[in-house]
């Protein structure tokens, strides 16, 4: 199968980025503890009686941070995310992540949950393979992708 990867990084660079992104600290551990496990809640859920269940709120510590987004882009390749979702997250055997559409919700906390626990149809749980801050950098990267503006209608004229 053809593969698409965004970054052709030397092996040493990948290892360095992984080490930087995944190095655990006490602060990281404390944040991971605080962040997990929250309620799953996204717009396609319908709440019985119209009241949403209580759940912990998840906030992205890197929201809007372009340096963290660049780190997330490197992790997207280094952790083999692009092997399923395609280079740039444009979709491959796994769904597109740059179309502005989300099966399991597109808020930061919802994307975090998808990466941490995995999803059905083969999305692996990465929560045991990388620390919380690495996952947040991936979330930051994915939320930085700009959906194309011509998606809903395809035309061959």
């Amino acid at each position, binding site marked *: 199968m053809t593969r698409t990867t965004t970054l052709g990084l030397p092996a040493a660079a990948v290892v360095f980025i992984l080490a930087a992104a995944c190095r655990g600290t006490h602060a990281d551990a404390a944040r991971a503890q605080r962040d997990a496990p929250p309620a799953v809640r996204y717009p396609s859920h319908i709440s019985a009686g119209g009241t949403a269940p209580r759940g912990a709120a998840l906030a992205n510590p890197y929201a809007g941070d372009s340096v963290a987004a660049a780190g997330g882009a490197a992790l997207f390749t280094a952790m*083999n995310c692009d092997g399923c979702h395609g280079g740039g997250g*444009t979709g491959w055997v796994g769904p597109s992540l740059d179309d502005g*559409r989300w099966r399991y919700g597109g808020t930061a906390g919802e994307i975090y949950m998808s990466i941490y626990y995995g999803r*059905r149809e083969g999305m692996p749980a990465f929560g045991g393979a990388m620390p919380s801050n690495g996952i947040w950098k991936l979330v930051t990267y994915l939320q930085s992708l700009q959906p194309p503006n011509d998606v809903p209608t395809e035309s061959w004229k």
Partner: protein
Amino acid sequence: MKWQRTTASMAAACVTALIWAAIALTPGRAAGAHVVHAQPPDDGEWTMPGKDYASTRYSGLSQITPDNAAHLHPVWTFSTGVLGGHEGQPLVVHNTMYVVTPYPNTLYAFDLSKPDYPLEWKYRPAVSPNAVGVACCDAVNRGAFYADGKIVYNLLDGHTVAVDAVSGKQLWLTTIADVSNGETTPMAPFVVKNRVLVGASGGEFGIHGWVKGLDLQTGHVAWTGYNIGPDSELLAKPGQFKPFYDHAANLGASTWPNNAWQTGGAPVWGWMSYDSTLDLVYYGTGNPSPYNPEQRAGDNKWTTSVMARRPEDGSLVWAYQFTPHDSWDFDAAAEMVLADLRIDGKVRKVLVHFDKNGFAYTIDRATGQVLVAQPFVQENWAKHIDLETGRPVVDSSKLTGASRGNVKDICPTLEGGKSPNSPVAYSPRTHLFYVSTSNMCMDYQAVPAARIRGTPYIGANSPYYPGAGGYMGAFEAWDAAVGRKVWEIKERYPVWSGVVATASDVVFYGTLDGYLRAVDARTGKILWSFKVGSGIVGNPITYRGPDGKQYVAVYAGIGGDWFLLAGDVRSDDPADVRAPADFVKDLARHTSRGGLVWIFAL
């Protein structure tokens, strides 16, 4: 299931015998320069993926001829309810048609002896949805095998199942593969005597590729033969394993650096064949992992190879590697068709293989000696195959690797000059092979890849574009005795279907934009086409119905690699919307996903 012989089918048998006699007595149709074999009357059934153990996909039926094929019309359709790529083919056994769907791998049994072909039963296994995302290239299934009253097939999530062909009840279910380690199981099992041979996909996940032999009665795993690693794991026993070209011990380990064979791929996802005289099963192995060849210096034996094993205990008898140190993802998973061909005046027992790498190989199937190797599509990675050494003479400017950057203009692509998904047919009447081909080229940028268990292990970016000539596929007839194209039909898109050839010199294939075509086997003239509603990536079959008539069946349902390459042919997921691929921008204008079974007759 109806087992009794009806008067209609008795009459059909007589008619067929008469037709057979007429064919046998007609002089001059078979090519004079070739061997003419007496063909036994066809049983009218289709009990295994390749029609017979030689994998010829040749049927002795002959009612549909070049003269009347234009009168073919659909007589029945059925939606499988599944959208995944419909590779593989139905089986027809004792007036029942068996259909296995892509994931979730439902098995349908249709009663062909009743009007409207009502469903007798359907078997719905519990298959893990995780397999959908671990399968590299869509959740396909390549079909079932009928043996000893059982329908045997693989579930995508690493199980082989045997179902009673009459009742639809599960007889046994065996775990053969580990999805969490990247193994999935879309291939069709292959049954020889009391052995069920199965393999696993996962060349994109760094698996340690293998074939297993199961007991047909119990499902118990009798042996496991790896394709890479030390001789002991290959079941290559001293004195018994005799490759024609390579003689050193433990090549499956010594041609890799630092135990890289342990995650070196060599998956098994294509087709198998069997020579009962030699007692050898033949199959091809897939690519080495990862795609970046600089992480695996050496030949990487026995990836991209044909393996010849004894079915009873799995012993490896010979092997031959088509693409040593594969730099282009040239899996050798395609079928090995067994034929007896006259080569240089002498009848040779050969196997013929159309490799992803663009060469067609004619090989002595007793020894593994390459007799003929010629390109059947445009290729530029090798100058030729050296028949003395069996090795390709590679154009070094086309070698890939992370340090080489983006290597441009490599033909064919890693989809193959022919997709292994799309098995050829061989007619013993015309002595020609009928081949679905792709005419595409690629750039290949390798990058370092890290193996993280349960995630892809790839390391290359390889965009495609059309090859020279302004077409992306062709259907061609090939003379494997000399290595020569006889005729071809150019198609707008890569041709991705299997083929069936018949005793009336009609061949059938399907196109990616959804046409089933009937073609004159001798001239390549298109006799009939019909648009089936979705692109064809499955394999047409032909059979005799209980009414004595000849039927042709095929799946519609674009998918497989096209699920990835042309993600815009899907419309089922509002949360996954993709732009068209650059090289097939208009494919979705002509087809979209959807699984259907079609049956045609005169």
